[in-house]
């Protein structure tokens, strides 16, 4: 139940025949540990191109992607027997602004479209759709409503339910909270976390927000200029001098902890201290 990338590169060809190298020589394995994984990097660093290899939306220009034992490369995709459907079922990809892709008359029809496409009978697909909608916090009062009359946050939930209804083992989310207000962002990320904890689904989410990384990710991948430059824990990444080169920011929590440590002239670092921990500390040390 895993995805493995072996020396994967992808280049796009422009209309004038020139090439653009989007990702270069990526080696990566995920899905074994059932983790919440953050994928970060500047605009144009190759994040979206990378994740589109995880479910065979893109075929590597060179190298091989292996999804659940199925090899995807320039050779294998030419075979008549090569089928993408099983890959799509294992690996669900939610695009940025998925709410623009809703199209059915009712919420329930929209969400059951995916499982039906996988070959499920109508009533089974409806059942899966209902379960998925409950998972994302939308009850039966939503089932017969038009997706177009929902709020932005609700539309996002509907489109995510559409992917969850296919019961993927790995869920890829491309900037899932973009466009939402802070409360909506937190609600959605908390939802992903609870789904992850219940179903043990591996989740990979693209984000620019290091505060989200700090709160939700156990593992982080960093893309920089088409290369995967870091794959490890966020805690180690925060200590790395390369952070600036990669144009990454530190989470606010960490900046605040560092600021308090400096203000109190403490030697030790305060990594992972909550605001309440800081209050206790300032009570003890707080004479300025």
């Amino acid at each position, binding site marked *: 139940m895993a995805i493995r990338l072996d020396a994967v590169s992808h280049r796009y060809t422009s209309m004038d025949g020139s090439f653009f190298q989007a990702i270069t020589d990526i080696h990566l394995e995920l899905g074994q540990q059932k983790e919440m994984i953050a994928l970060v990097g500047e605009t144009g660093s190759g994040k979206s191109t990378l994740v589109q290899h995880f479910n065979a939306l893109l075929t590597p220009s060179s190298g091989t992607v292996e999804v659940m034992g199925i090899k995807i490369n320039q050779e294998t995709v030419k075979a008549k027997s090569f089928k993408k459907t099983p890959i799509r079922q294992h690996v669900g990809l939610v695009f940025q602004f998925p709410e623009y892709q809703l199209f059915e008359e009712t919420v329930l029809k929209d969400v059951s479209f995916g499982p039906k496409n996988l070959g499920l009978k109508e009533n089974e697909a409806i059942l899966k759709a209902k379960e998925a909608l409950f998972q994302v916090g939308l009850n039966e009062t939503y089932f017969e409503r038009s997706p177009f009359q929902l709020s932005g946050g609700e539309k996002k939930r509907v489109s995510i339910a559409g992917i969850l209804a296919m019961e993927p083992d790995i869920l890829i989310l491309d900037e899932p909270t973009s466009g939402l207000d802070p*409360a909506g962002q937190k609600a959605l990320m908390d939802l992903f976390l609870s789904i992850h904890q219940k179903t043990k689904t591996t989740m990979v989410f693209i984000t620019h927000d290091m505060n989200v990384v700090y709160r939700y990710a156990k593992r982080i991948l960093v893309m920089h200029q088409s290369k995967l430059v870091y794959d490890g824990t966020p805690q180690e990444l925060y200590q790395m001098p390369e952070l600036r080169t990669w144009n990454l920011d530190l989470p606010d929590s960490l900046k605040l902890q560092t600021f308090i440590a400096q203000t109190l002239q403490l030697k030790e670092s305060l990594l992972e201290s909550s605001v309440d921990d800081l*209050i206790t500390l300032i009570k003890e040390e707080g004479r300025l």
Partner: protein
Amino acid sequence: MPFIELKNVSFKYPSKQAIEQLSLSIEKGEWVAVVGPNGSGKSTLAKLIIGLLTPQSGEIFVEGEKLTPESVNEVRQKIGIIFQNPDNQFVGVTVRDDIAFGLENLQVPYQEMLTRIDTYAAQMKMTEFLDKEPSNLSGGQKQRVAIAGALAMQPEVMIFDEATSMLDPKGRLETLQAMRELRAQKTTLLTITHDLKEALQADRVVVLNEGQVLATGTPREILTNIDILTEAKLALIEPLELLNKMEEAGISSQEWEAKLWQFALTL
């Protein structure tokens, strides 16, 4: 006389009331940040001020002049606006063409046009990109081109409608820096955002909720007020959460407050 004044403005979309009996004034040279949850009417407000939407009732004045179908073109020249998605606002093949586009529409004389392009490209630190295609720039660079294009029209107020929300951290900081530079030059700024770290920089914060002004005040008054923030589905930023809890615990001091406030402005 306020520079922009809205008096009892209401606007309804076919399915939803967006702005209800809203009154608001913005002084010349002031930086006002409008914050609020999705659907609170923030973006509708911006579209009403630039005359892209017409209120069903109420009046809008810009420098004392009432916004009407007759005055809208003249009034709009006083206002520059930057939208959320940097990719949706380019028309030119090169950065230079793009900045020139608005000026051609205004029929600015050719020599004057060249001068303005150079001036505002330099101000936004985009001079070396003048002959590049906008599509090849980073998100932050694209927003700086859009700002240069808007500034070249020499508006008296700049509106930023969620202009940093789709940018990576570097692009966000570049755009915030551009806002600070404009403030330093006394340009009137209206920034619409749900990034409270952006709102912190403003002179005054207006909280919108369900099309009405829920609260207005200094960043200090609004952004530490947990009741207001909760009602508007916004979250306290961490240094201010710490500040609030220090006050509750009776361990705050003016010195701590000043330090935490300074720190918050760097985020």
